């Protein structure tokens, strides 16, 4: 085994010691007070704390305010088309399991146009960390109801109020076979947001984090009931889940012991609409990752290709008589 000299070791550590600035790129163009800023802060902190190499990290998004996220990270980024962040991210991860891949998607991007991909991404359970920036509205296109808009939301396409009960992204996700990590966070409790982002990052498999995100531009008051009354936020704590600081517990007294391995309970908790449960709803570290099931560790050399191709060609070859004898 090769040994590094102490200096080398130190140098490398130095090099891998990143600052917050190493992950910042450009000035976020979100509105003042937009919850996306809080998510960005948490994620940049995660990257620094975990020492993620910027060139080995990719943020993939769709289209929407939230999908601008990659532009503000000094990593690789893929700001694609509306609704397709997840399949793009799956392709990235499949081709390059060595990269750390995050996904930023909005409630329209994920739960409306991208809903089929969402269901199937949960099913594939690739090692991706997915943030659903749920502001309950279409931000970028200027205020149309989204699937997660509360019933009665007045928007430009529902001027007399939206017609349907809000879709609950948590219960849908928990209904998908192969789900391995579901959590909920809110943008206005940064400490817990960070803890959840971190737990999601450390989970191997697809971690789905729904973040209730404020959109002061279009729905300035919609989350006020939960922001103003800490008791309407229910922190989920458990020795297998998150545990909260004393300071936090003083403010957020409404806490529930919930073992994230209990699916039935997770679904029940997720169904609550009056209370906002915050924490890890479900975690199952044993669900295999699609990329592990599918990835080949063959060295894809010209030799391997040549051999494979020729073996196949052999099956279909008509040999000239003389060669046939040679081959045989």
């Amino acid at each position: 085994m090769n040994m590094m000299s102490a200096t080398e070791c130190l140098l490398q550590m130095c090099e891998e010691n990143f600052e917050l600035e190493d992950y910042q790129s450009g000035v976020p163009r979100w509105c003042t007070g937009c919850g996306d800023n809080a998510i960005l802060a948490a994620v940049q902190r995660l990257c620094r704390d975990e020492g993620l190499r910027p060139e080995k990290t990719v943020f993939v998004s769709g289209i929407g305010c939230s999908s601008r996220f990659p532009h503000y990270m000094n990593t690789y980024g893929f700001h694609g088309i509306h609704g397709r962040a997840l399949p793009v991210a799956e392709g990235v991860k499949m081709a390059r399991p060595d990269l750390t891949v995050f996904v930023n998607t909005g409630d329209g991007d994920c739960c409306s146009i991208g809903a089929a991909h969402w269901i199937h991404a949960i099913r594939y359970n690739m090692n991706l960390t997915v943030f659903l920036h749920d502001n309950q509205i279409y931000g970028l296109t200027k205020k149309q109801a989204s699937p997660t808009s509360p019933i009665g939301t007045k928007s430009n396409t529902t001027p007399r109020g939206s017609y349907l009960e809000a879709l609950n992204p948590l219960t849908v996700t928990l209904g998908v076979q192969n789900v391995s990590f579901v959590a909920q966070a809110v943008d206005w409790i940064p400490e817990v947001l960070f803890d959840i982002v971190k737990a999601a990052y450390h989970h191997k498999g697809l971690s789905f984090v729904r973040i209730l995100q404020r959109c002061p531009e279009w729905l300035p008051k919609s989350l006020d009931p939960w922001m103003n009354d800490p008791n309407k936020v229910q922190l989920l704590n458990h020795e297998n889940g998150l545990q909260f600081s004393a300071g936090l517990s003083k403010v957020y007294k409404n806490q529930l012991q919930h073992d994230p391995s209990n699916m039935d309970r997770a679904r029940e908790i997720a169904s609550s609409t009056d209370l906002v449960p915050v924490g890890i709803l479900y975690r199952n570290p044993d669900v295999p990752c699609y990329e592990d099931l599918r990835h080949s560790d063959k060295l894809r050399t010209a030799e391997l290709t040549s051999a494979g191709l020729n073996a196949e060609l052999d099956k279909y070859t008509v040999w000239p008589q003389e060669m046939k004898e040679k081959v045989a």
Partner: protein
Amino acid sequence: MNEMTIQTSLKKAGSKGRVPAGKKPAVKLKEHIVEIISDSGEGAQKCGQSLGAIAAQMGNGIWTTEIIPAEIRPPARSVAGASGNRIRIGSGYITNGGDETDLVVAFNEQVLLGRVRAKELKPNCIILLESMWRTHTDPKIVASYIETYDRVVAAGYKVYEIPMEHECRTIVADARRGKNMYALGMLCYIYSLELKLAVDQILLAFGKKDKSVVDANIKLLEAGHKWAEANLDFCYSIPATRSTEPQVVVNGNTALALGVLASGMEICAMYPITPATSASHYLSEVFEKVGGMVHQAEDEIAACAFAIGASYASKCTITITSGPGFSLKQEAIGLAVMGEIPLVVVNVMRGGPSTGQPTKMEQGDLMTAIFGSHGDAPKVVMAPGTIEECFYSIITARRIAETFNMVVVVLTDAGLATSQQPFARPKFSDTWMAPPVDQSPIPAGAKPYDWDETTGLARRFIPGQPGGMHTLTGLAHDRDSHVAYDAEINEQTLRFRSLKLAALQKTLKAPSVFGDSKGDLLVIGWGSTKGAIEEAVETMRAEGKKVSSMHLQFLQPLPPGIKEIMQGFKKVMTIESNWSDRPEDKIIDETNRRYSSVAILLRSRYLVDIDCWSEVKGQPIKPGTIRRVMMDQLKKQK
């Protein structure tokens, strides 16, 4: 009682159609087209494929075409249910399925009727017809059989009634399953093919199974051969010259999949759709052997997006589909164009529009390939014209995609997909593969889109490359990949993406002319019609007509030199399998006639009065039809 009936049948059959036996010397033929048809599941496919393989082994030129029912499991004995194979066997090299059939083996009269109605049989076609139906217990079937038989005979076909099932039953219990090898034996006799080669085929097919299965099949084979020898009053030989080079015999979809293997691509993302799927099936079977994988996505959009993600982060990736899936991918294809992500998109075309005719051949998606994504989305469009080109086009497509950071669309069709033709066994070359994914640091100052002012080309930054961090976006963007709101940048980047097509065009060779470079008529085609067009040209040239043809492998960009070629001819016309309005229709005139696809492209570019003729019958266009069309065109000139 069953026995009795069969005896009667034999007598009757004999009295009607069959001529007393007697070995005659083999008649030498230049070529023959033979088909074997049955209800699906009765093995006619296998019989036909084996026959093709044997003939190829003998050194004959062959072209096999699958006869596919449009439904999974059509009712037994139904007109639309014919399943089987059609083999054109020739002395020389065969480039297409040819005209109508010369000889057919039919397992029941209904599937035969389907072929007659489709006008697929030559007027004096020989028919070898299973005779068991004549004595069936169901009187309706008997009546149907007799009616059809009489009609077919009356129509002038030479019908031989043959008690195939009855004969087989003397060898195996489940005669329905064994009949196909019995038929193969008969055909080996008819075409003077070595029975040993047929035995090899059986060993290849059933070798892994029980020895008893192999033996039974060999017995059936030999029985068929013997029966034909004893009972048929004709027999042929099609002289062959064995190739001195190894040949592979595969259909177009297998060739495509082998091309994927050979190109060194590693991921194929797809969603099942006919007729593209069989390529993915084969790839699913073998891709992992070279470290590749096939991803079946939840839909075509996801398949395309997955491929784009993989391409973005690694080597060029491929996604394979057919018409409806191709339409669905258009938005994602536009993203790959905008992001300059290399991507190979294969569209195995089928009958359109909409779900159309899923199992049928058509060349209807050319314009969608070029113009299908909103905005200006320049991409390369190419179309193989032979099975061999199916293989090599993928290798070429991969290389172009990665050199130009472009989307390359490869258009094949249901015809190529299911036809077999031998071609020289490819010799793998390292240069077919992309170099390993570049993970070297990006030099300071380099930008993710550093477009060359002349060619529009820019180096691609791949995740993992230190210093190359940037966010790719489908929005208009500048050299830094920053979102661009600026008018000038928008126009400049449209320019760069478009220039790449011109740059590629500069590297293309002028297409070659088949026939003389001067003459009365030049026919232009693309894709799977190549063999049929060239055969028609050859035939007519042999008759002294001054006709030539030119086949386009690149449809976007169009290669240079076309204008000069066209100038050598009095008249130019296109022949393809997509819709064009018929000039003879009452309300159609020059102000409203909708031209076929490649005609539109060529007329627009060269301002030459190119006529078009097209047929959209879901079948490959026959050389004889093309010949007629060209004759008509020549007549108009006078």
